[in-house]
């Protein structure tokens, strides 16, 4: 269709999506969005039908995170839109570019409590980066263009566009709006000089790397910075994959379930270089004691993160792709850091994970490490929330941040399966594995139908301890072993359930079965469910108790059997 052609608002919506390179939309139809679904019918922009709007929006999140593109989802008014809220909140906290388009009742009946009417714009205020309700057909196309621009620029996030039904069927003349592309700011020379001075003074610097690096497309810039400076590093849950596995001085994840070496190194550093991270409470433990003797160099595209929780000595809010090379230039720290690098190396060696686990039971950390080592180069691992999520973060390794999809900020159970679906659509040739727990898996289990419908080869590794494991662990440690509502021993037969969706699978109970079962799962051409029964005595270690300093980690307590 040429510019200037007359069409319905609904047709214009699909045309704008196509103009933004959108090839797949995730969604669920309903009354108030029927004109848009009508426009979609037979259109090259394909639609993936979820079985719950939360699943559709999580698939859009998974698509965005695995591809770096903006994910798009559709829902109808009322319950369709309210079902998006959790996923949009997840995208907001994890800075994921998503455009959600919701149908709304016609403008004439808005505010009359019409059928399936709810104030979606009002609801969206706290769970989106920005939101719109289109009440003028002439504003439809510019609004959609703005939505894509806002979602992907600066610190990315979800944008919702609520479109009343009469706007969808109103006629317009399609015109491509004039675009104003937001350029990320360049760093100021004085700030770079101040940062470089801090770096040159530091005897024990460490990089604290967050999800912002991957979102900024600055992974290679960060790796070059590390190669040039030799500065040791740790990563947040969302930062995993930004630093290459095996990089000298890289100590993995820090924080509540971070490695001992990572936490101890941060606690003894004299300069904390924060790159795209935000001093989350799960990272810092007791904030007042976090890296207590360190100066702070904070790099973040979002100026609202600077000095929010920890005062920075120097801060730069600019494009990392310019900041990191500018800092690295004329900086040669390798020689001065030898002693600190050795200290970090000693911590690394002293606190390496121990995968030697006696007995016949399956030890999930060892299994996940084995899985990581088996995965092909083009792989994505999504996970849900709980003990298995922390084991994935601790024991698996990732080539890039987009290979590890984990609900970090919101911590949303039910994220893993639909996120894996979105990732598989974005990267059809990749091996996509969702690692889930028996609690989380049931939260969006209906999306097995989506896998069946599209014959998506998603692998499901379901770690089952018949418990809400992380809550149970806290009940054991901090609530006098009063196990309130965390028993899931009445779980369904997961493999039988998967078979109802034409997904083959098997259950394993013993350590000796792990190797062959992982191979079978990865070798199966289509989807597969590997159901792994583990003992509920296994907990996640180490653990920084709530309110404690990160150097006060609790260590393994359970008897190994």
């Amino acid at each position, binding site marked *: 269709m040429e510019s200037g052609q007359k069409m319905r608002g609904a047709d214009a919506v699909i045309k704008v999506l196509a103009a933004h390179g959108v090839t797949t939309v995730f969604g669920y139809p309903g009354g108030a969005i029927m004109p848009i679904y009508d426009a979609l019918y037979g259109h090259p922009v394909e639609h993936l039908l979820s079985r719950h709007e939360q699943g559709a929006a999580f698939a859009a999140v998974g698509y965005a995170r695995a591809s770096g593109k903006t994910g798009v989802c559709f829902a109808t008014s009322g319950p369709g839109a309210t079902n998006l809220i959790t996923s949009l909140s997840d995208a907001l906290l994890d800075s994921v570019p998503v455009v959600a388009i919701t149908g709304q009742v016609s403008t004439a009946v808005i505010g009359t409590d019409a059928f399936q009417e709810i104030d979606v714009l009002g609801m969206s205020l*706290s769970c989106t980066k*920005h939101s719109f309700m289109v009440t003028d057909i002439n504003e439809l196309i510019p609004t959609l263009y703005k939505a894509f621009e806002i979602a992907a620029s600066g610190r990315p996030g979800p944008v919702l566009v609520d479109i009343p039904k009469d706007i969808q069927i109103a006629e317009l003349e399609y015109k491509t709006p004039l675009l104003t592309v937001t350029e990320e700011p360049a760093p100021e020379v004085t700030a770079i000089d101040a940062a470089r001075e801090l770096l040159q003074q530091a005897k024990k610097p460490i990089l604290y790397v967050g999800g912002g690096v991957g979102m900024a497309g600055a992974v290679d810039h960060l790796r070059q910075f590390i190669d040039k400076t030799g500065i040791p590093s740790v990563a947040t849950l969302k930062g995993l994959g930004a630093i290459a596995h095996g990089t000298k001085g890289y100590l993995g994840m820090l924080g509540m379930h971070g490695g001992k070496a990572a936490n101890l190194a941060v606690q003894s550093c004299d300069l904390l270089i924060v790159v795209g991270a935000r001093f989350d409470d799960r990272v810092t433990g007791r904030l007042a004691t976090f890296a207590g003797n360190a100066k702070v160099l904070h790099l973040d595209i979002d100026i609202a993160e600077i*000095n929010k929780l920890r005062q920075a000595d120097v801060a730069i809010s600019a494009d990392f792709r310019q900041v990191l090379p500018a800092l690295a230039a004329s900086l040669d720290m390798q020689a001065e850091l030898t002693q600190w690098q050795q200290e970090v190396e000693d911590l690394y060696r002293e606190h390496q994970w121990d995968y030697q686990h006696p007995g016949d039971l399956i030890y999930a950390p060892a299994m996940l490490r084995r899985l990581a080592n088996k995965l092909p180069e083009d792989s994505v691992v999504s996970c849900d929330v709980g003990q298995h999520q922390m084991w994935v973060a601790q024991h698996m390794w990732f080539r890039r941040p987009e290979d590890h999809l984990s609900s970090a900020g919101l911590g949303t159970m039910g994220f893993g399966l639909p996120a894996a679906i979105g990732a598989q659509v974005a990267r059809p040739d990749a091996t996509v594995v969702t690692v889930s727990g028996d609690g989380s898996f049931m939260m969006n289990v209906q999306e097995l139908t989506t896998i069946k419908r599209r014959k998506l080869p998603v692998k499901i590794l379901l770690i089952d301890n018949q418990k809400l494991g992380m809550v149970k662990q806290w009940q054991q440690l901090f609530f006098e072993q009063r196990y309130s509502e965390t028993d899931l021993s009445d779980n369904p037969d997961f493999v039988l359930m998967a078979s109802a969706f034409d997904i083959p699978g098997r259950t394993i109970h013993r350590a000796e079965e792990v190797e062959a079962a992982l191979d079978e799962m990865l070798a199966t051409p289509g989807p597969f469910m590997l159901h792994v029964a583990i003992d509920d005595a296994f907990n996640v270690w180490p653990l920084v108790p709530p309110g404690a300093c990160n150097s006060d980690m609790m260590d393994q307590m359970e008897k190994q059997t």
Partner: protein
Amino acid sequence: MMHAVELRLKPQPEVLERVLRVTRHRGFTVTELTMTANEDSTLKVNFDVESERVIGLLTHQLTKLFDVLDCQVLTSSTVPVGAETPASVSA
């Protein structure tokens, strides 16, 4: 601390909701508020807020809102904005 804040806003129907939601969520209590239309059709909002938190935590968040064109802190004090300084408190 009390702070007097002045905002210039795009004339969107929900813009005041956005500002007030962020203000509440970030830990600030509005004690007084006026809104008037500027000649250029933008909106001017003046409000006084009270919080133990640093005002920058609020202004940075407000500035991020797409419908906020400008955000200025006019005054900050330990007594309510506009109230007379008690004789026992030195300036």
